[in-house]
């Protein structure tokens, strides 16, 4: 294969991938924040599902800042590549109003697409994910220095004052 052609093609795939990827992310964010789904984006059809039974359906989530409900959310989208149509799914877990986990699921048929999706996935996997400490039963834990005595008591006092 002609090297310049190859580079061109690579560039094209990366560009289209980044474009589509941004659309998916925007779609997830906008759909989660807005109850007006039809106004999100006019590109490829995207479906958002909430697989957590306790959490409300996404279209009841309002745009107020504290309205992220705990639960698992996911969005899928399909996009065209030089190698054909590919599907991508982004899943996010919301805990305490913050995204505590996020992942990508790929269904690429084309070899190049698979490589690029792998690259994206590796980037995404470099976010830390929390696992309940009591499920790994380790006697030693390292994080912020455990505080004893005065500091904690003082902090409690400050919090109580703030509530009065």
């Amino acid at each position: 294969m002609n090297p310049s052609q190859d580079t061109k093609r690579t560039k094209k795939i990366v560009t289209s991938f980044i474009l589509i990827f941004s659309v998916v992310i925007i779609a997830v964010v906008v759909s989660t924040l807005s109850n007006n789904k039809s106004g999100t984006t006019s590109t490829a059809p995207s479906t958002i599902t909430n697989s957590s039974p306790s959490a409300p359906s996404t279209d009841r989530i309002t745009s107020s800042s504290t309205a992220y409900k705990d639960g698992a959310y996911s969005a899928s989208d399909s996009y065209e590549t030089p190698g054909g149509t590919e599907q991508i799914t982004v899943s996010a877990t919301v805990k305490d109003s913050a995204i505590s986990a996020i992942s990508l699921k790929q269904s690429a048929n084309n070899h190049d697409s698979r490589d690029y999706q792998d690259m994206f996935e590796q980037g995404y996997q470099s976010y830390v994910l929390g696992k309940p400490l009591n499920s790994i039963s380790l006697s030693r834990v390292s994080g912020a220095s455990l505080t004893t005595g005065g500091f904690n008591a003082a902090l409690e006092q400050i919090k109580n004052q703030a509530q009065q």
Partner: protein
Amino acid sequence: MPHSSKSKTKPSNKLMRHCTFDAIGTRWNIEISEPVSNFTYGKLLGDIKKRIEEFDKNYSRFRDDSLVTIMSKSPGIYELPADAKLLLDLYEQLYLLTHGAVTPLIGQALVNAGYDTLYSLQPKEMQATPSWEEVVDYAFPTLALKQPALLDFGAAGKGYLVDIIAEIIERRGIRSYGIDAGGDILYRNAKDEAVEVGLEHPKDPSLAVGIAKIRNQSLCGSSIYKRAWGSYHHIIDPANGKSPKEIAAVWVVADSTLLADGLTTALFFIPASTLQQQYNFDYAIVRADLSLETSANFPAHFFNQQEVVYA
């Protein structure tokens, strides 16, 4: 707590030992993982308590009678304790490498932010932190203070004390033991066995983000969400008087706890690559958006999607 019953067949009182106590504002766990007699263990605990008291009396800015409190009130030339060399040498190096961000002169800023002897946690007006050159003339064994200054050794002092306690334990011939000072951990094992340590999620202490495995090394961690009040936490940038917020947690694995502890703080301010030119260590950084950066050989496994299951 010795509770060995005097067995007729085997009159040995040698046991593995574990003790927990509070000192220098944190919880300590010391585990001796080889058999030690009641006599040796008793002596050892006495030595450790005495040494912690001595260290606290020199370096704690939280007590009125400490050396650093006395120094803060009257400038002059002070003869330093013998153990000050390693600590001050590291502080001097880190001061230069971080362009003044890691500095013992941060004491007054911490007090003004409310991290004072009474834990008032009431921020007062911030003053500029003076430079090392303005205030300190250090040439071991002396340290001259050219103007009143409250020294704070919070960035590396605890780690250093862990190393000092390790030395005391080894003086009793013990080679397999672990010291955990509120998450700053030193682990020694005669058979080079590893110990697993959970890495606490910076935003949720009930979760771990991974498991580190350390063997004959030290691991220190720091996170900005504990020891935090108002807009401050335990680290303050002397350049602007604010607590840095871009990094949520840092872990460092190194051969000494002093170094691991000091580098943990330094990594809040400068890129790891700068420090790696100078020191041998591995690190993991979790930024505020929970993105992760680690050195190539940081000895830990971070949980992936498949391993994390929410109820």
